[in-house]
């Protein structure tokens, strides 16, 4: 019963948040355009770069565009559905969190759905276009396993991203500062997963595989799909990595709650 109720509530919250956002028509339009424009510029960057060279570290243009589009899709989905993770600092500082703790609904669900990111729609739309375009250009030896793998890794990528952002934002419980830039710094590490991570050197590669495992949202899955190296098969661990991070983020949150003592107002 409870999981079903959570899912139902999630969609109710999402619908309400979407209505709220759409009230601000100009803001929504700008965010939508900004989301799509940023991704277009990322795509143009690669196109211009590859007009002068055939490949980078053995990766072709469309293989990298495939990685980039997978990132756009998961980024878009996460901003659309779970943007609330970025509001933890605000909720803690204003004491708004008190209200959530009193309600008979999981505080994690309430936080994640506290707001929605309209720009996520722009990201997803452009991501989907580039994703299908890149599938037409790259060479993948299609098997049933590879077909099944694509939705699996995208869902895992969403969970991984959400868990990392959520856990990083939980630092607000301990920092108690009016603004918190730590999560943004963590978020930015995903830049290393937008490209074949091996080009950044062993240290960075190890970091985004083992410490902040952004490599699982695009790089390792791409290694497996394009058959770049034997260890690509570890891409199948993405759901496990996602589960592990989700549990970890949950634990961090409840540890954080212990350090939380309201805003005093």
């Amino acid at each position, binding site marked *: 019963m409870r999981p079903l109720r959570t899912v139902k509530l999630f969609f109710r919250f999402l619908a309400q948040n979407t209505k709220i956002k759409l009230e601000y028509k100009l*803001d929504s339009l700008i965010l939508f355009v*900004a989301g799509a424009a940023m991704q277009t510029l990322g795509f143009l960057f690669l196109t211009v770069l590859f007009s002068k060279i055939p490949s980078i570290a053995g990766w072709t243009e469309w293989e990298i565009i495939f990685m980039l589009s997978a990132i756009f899709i998961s980024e878009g989905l996460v901003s659309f559905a779970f943007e609330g993770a970025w509001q933890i600092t605000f909720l803690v500082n204003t004491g708004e969190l008190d209200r959530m703790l009193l309600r008979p609904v999981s505080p994690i669900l309430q936080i994640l759905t506290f707001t929605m990111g309209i720009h996520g729609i722009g990201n997803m739309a452009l991501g989907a276009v580039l994703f299908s375009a890149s599938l037409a250009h790259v060479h993948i030896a299609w098997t049933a396993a590879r077909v099944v793998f694509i939705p699996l890794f995208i869902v895992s990528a969403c969970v991984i991203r959400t868990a990392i952002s959520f856990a990083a934002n939980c630092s607000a419980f301990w920092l108690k*500062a009016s603004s918190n*830039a730590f999560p943004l710094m963590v978020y930015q590490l995903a830049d290393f997963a937008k490209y074949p991570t091996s080009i950044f050197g062993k240290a960075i590669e190890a970091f985004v595989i083992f410490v902040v495992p952004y490599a699982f949202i695009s790089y390792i899955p791409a290694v497996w799909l394009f058959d770049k190296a034997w260890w690509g098969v570890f891409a199948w661990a993405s759901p496990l990595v996602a589960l592990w991070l989700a549990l970890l983020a949950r634990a961090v949150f409840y540890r954080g709650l212990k350090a939380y003592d309201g805003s005093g107002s």
Partner: protein
Amino acid sequence: MRQAIRKYRRYASLAFQETIAYRIPYAVNMISIIVTYLVIFLIWMAVFSGKSEVGGYQWAEMKTYLIISLFMSALISGSSEFRISRQIRTGNIAVELLRPADYQLGSLAITLGNCLSEGALVGVACLGFALATGPGVLPPDAVSWAAFALACAIAFATKFLLVYVFSLACFWTNSLMGISWLRKGLTDFFSGALIPLSFFPLWLKGAADWLPFKSIVWVPASAFTGRLAGVELARALAVGAAWAVALWFIARFVWSRAMRKVTIQGG
């Protein structure tokens, strides 16, 4: 006149002290710029590995270009957009309107103050990075150095005015986020911060040539490496200066429109 200069110098010196007092937001902004550049730098390094030149560039020149690009991006931070948008959204702009000072000049002075306090640190960091990564290229003569200095001044004016005009859009919207992303994305791409404009296909280069963004990175960095020189450089500087003047008046126009529209929420 002298009094006016004293007034805005005070703005600048307060901003200078403020940056030193509130180090954390500044440090975070810096780290975020450095991560972005580290990614770009390492990609370019991978592109050049095993090649003596790409698109007419040798690694030493590309490396120098990227470091100057980092220097320009870090030197003139966009932090004033947070201040301006916050003042607009909270209604604190009302206090600013009461001051016997011009808001645009005041913002310019504050940005200049920030720039001066951050400049030394950014310069040292870039120099250290340049020395640590092997040989680069230097401006060939005194004229090039002078042109580079002039290009930096134009870059400063252009970036400040772009940030300022985009921030004023907050009079019509409720949040800065989309506006800020759009400005940053357009600046990073069309200024040549990530990829020199000479790599662009013709249609895109045509667009970049007529937009103001190229004054922020492409012109100063290419003046530094000597790629832009002579008549071509003079033309680029003239176009950049013209854009800066035009943006100054565009900002004035947007401001006057905003003043007709502004409603301060009571509190």
